[in-house]
């Protein structure tokens, strides 16, 4: 048993820190903050120049050949620093699917441009009427010669306003049983008939409601078989690598620990001299360590050759519920001052708890809600009957 991540991973960490110091400028952070967009083209291109758009891909395909754990360490650093990674994240999920299932023409079209940091692909799964049960997608695709005509709407299409394509789950056979009549497409977003309406969220992150009216997609941009969309989604899920967890809560904890060590103006002792303050910070530190360890375990399991399964669900569930609990508790700890918003010049600890308190509620929803994760853990981890 060894909890060290290893020299190679620690080297990745050092390089990631250097990279962030150079490229995650105050300007980039400020822009992210004011626009709520967690994608930045300059940062993205710098990532690409560094060869870090697809760090886990083999070198001959344009990656760095990193192990899952090495990739995780990179993510730990990026998340903790608050770097804009949503765009590259969704793009590379789709590029990974195309690498496995795409036609030669599709690979040619997508992969080199994705690796060069020139395009962004967003995810169009969720709809106004369905999210967790994504198999209920209603957005229609109807064949018309060499093209398909798409009508419908997608909810929470994050980064659509920046995106070149949406990887979209559509219904091609409304009469087939639910999971049989689905087909996936790479839908070019910059064309008439695509309407993008911004949605503002609790954390300030921008996402979108997107509408598709007689949008045309050539058959060459269909990924997988007609009515075989569910198989494509399954491949997508199996490619999903372990995600780092605990970055945002580490950032909150670090800010509050700095606060705890500073004697306030007019005060006689730093907050940390109060044992209740230490106990609350310590509890957050414990949960944070556990979030990190569960995510690393999931990476280690994958590096050992297994598919991500219950371990990934546990890591995601724990980390998002932990930051929800901890941000509330640490906000309370600050008393009425806890309410002062991030960005307000009077905020304590930079408003870190207040921001985390808002941010946390997104994490319990996207990427599979906590209830969905618990269903997976109960069924596949504990062997309980399918939960109802």
């Amino acid at each position: 048993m060894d909890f060290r991540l290893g020299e190679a991973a620690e080297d990745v960490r050092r390089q990631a820190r250097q990279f962030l110091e150079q490229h995650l400028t105050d300007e980039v952070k400020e822009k992210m903050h004011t626009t709520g967009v967690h994608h930045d083209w300059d940062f993205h291109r710098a990532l690409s120049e560094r060869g870090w758009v697809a760090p886990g891909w083999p070198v001959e395909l344009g990656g760095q050949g990193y192990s899952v754990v090495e990739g995780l360490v990179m993510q730990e650093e990026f998340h903790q620093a608050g770097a804009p990674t949503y765009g590259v994240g969704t793009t590379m999920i789709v590029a990974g699917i195309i690498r496995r299932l795409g036609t030669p023409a599709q690979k040619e079209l997508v992969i080199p441009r994705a690796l060069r940091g020139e395009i962004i692909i967003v995810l169009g799964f969720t709809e106004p009427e369905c999210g967790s049960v994504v198999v209920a997608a209603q957005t229609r695709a109807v064949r018309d010669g060499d093209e398909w005509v798409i009508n419908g709407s997608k909810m929470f299409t994050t980064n659509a306003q920046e995106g070149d394509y949406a990887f979209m789950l559509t219904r091609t056979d409304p009469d087939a049983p639910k999971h049989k009549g689905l087909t996936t497409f790479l839908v070019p977003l910059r064309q008439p008939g695509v309407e993008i309406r911004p949605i503002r969220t609790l954390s300030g992150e921008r996402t979108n409601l997107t509408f598709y009216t007689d949008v045309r997609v050539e058959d060459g941009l269909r990924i997988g078989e007609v009515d075989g969309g569910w198989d494509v989604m399954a491949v997508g899920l199996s490619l999903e690598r372990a995600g780092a967890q605990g970055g945002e809560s580490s950032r909150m904890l670090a800010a509050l620990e700095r606060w705890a060590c500073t004697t306030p103006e007019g005060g006689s002792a730093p907050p940390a001299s109060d044992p209740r303050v230490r106990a609350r910070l310590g509890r957050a530190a414990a949960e944070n360590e556990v979030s990190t360890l569960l995510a690393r375990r999931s990476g280690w399991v994958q590096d050992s050759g297994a598919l991500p399964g219950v371990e990934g669900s546990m890591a995601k569930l724990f980390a998002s519920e932990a930051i929800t609990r901890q941000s509330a508790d640490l906000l309370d700890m600050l008393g009425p001052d806890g309410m002062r918003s991030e960005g307000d010049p009077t905020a304590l600890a930079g408003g870190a708890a207040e921001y985390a308190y808002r941010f946390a509620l997104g994490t319990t929803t996207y990427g599979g809600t906590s209830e969905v994760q618990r269903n997976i853990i109960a069924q596949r981890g504990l062997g309980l009957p399918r939960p109802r």
Partner: protein
Amino acid sequence: MALDLSPSEEQQQLIDAFAALYDKESSTERVRAAEPLGHDPDLWRRLRENGAVEMAVDEAAGGWGATVLDLALVAEQHGRHLGSAPMLEAQVAARTLARVGTPEATGLLEGAMDGGRLVTLALHPPRAGLLRMVPAGAVADAILFVDGGRLLVLEPGLGRIRVANLGSLPVSDVPVEGSRPVAEGPVVRDALEGALDEWLVLMAAAMVGPGARALEIGVGYAKDRHAFGVPIGSFQAVAHGLADAATALDGAQLLEREAAWSATEEPGRFRELAALAFGFCTDAARQASYRSLHYHGGYGFMLEHDIQLFWRRAKGWPAQYAEPDVAFGRAEACRLGMSGEEG
């Protein structure tokens, strides 16, 4: 060297050996038979014969030199089988004596290793001449404790007061009359802090046991017991509670093992991690055993059902030291570089 979360071959052998011993010598029937005192002399004898005390002591002091991680892996098995024996305390006391190294300490250590004497340690100083709730105090031949910067030993006589308690643990209140000094000076403080770190991490490891076993029992029951013609485990209200408990316990085990590993591999983080692990594992075990008991319905409330054995120890064992918040505070003091604030 890189991340490797599975036990090595030797570690697995150690786990298997103790799992087999406990399977045989610590069935729930045996656990019940040892109540309410919570001490099973035959189990304790078998543990001693298998080197439970010697292994904990450094080779330089005549022991077998097991790492804290080895001891934690054994403690997991101890907890899983609700071992009615003061193994953790005896191990930590022996290690403390070896670390202190005065002639008096060396004599006591010899008695503990070769003489079969049971030496335990008090986790808190005496108040008004009384050591309170001393772990294994009801069965120990000698009790180590710290008072006013001195490490003392006491052979509890007829004066000790056995305490009926939630966890059926052999704790007792012990008057400090008749104690004699073992060591003094700065070494005492270091030794006591070190002993507390080790007890915390081993208790954290032990807590994963009743948590995990209780969860298995709960999951088994949720598959068997039916309502409305389906197993109760198919209701999300039940399944999700168990899923949360399983997640927390997996995290607890990782944290406790990391903490134990750090004792030798990253000593600068050991104190912090040991205390974090104690706090987190305590909560995780309580939650798992509570949920599993609750999903037994009324049967869970019956003494006859084994689940209550796990639920009571999950609370009682760690409570011998303190509530989780005290440990979290201790860990945070380390993180913030504060000294003299802990404990």
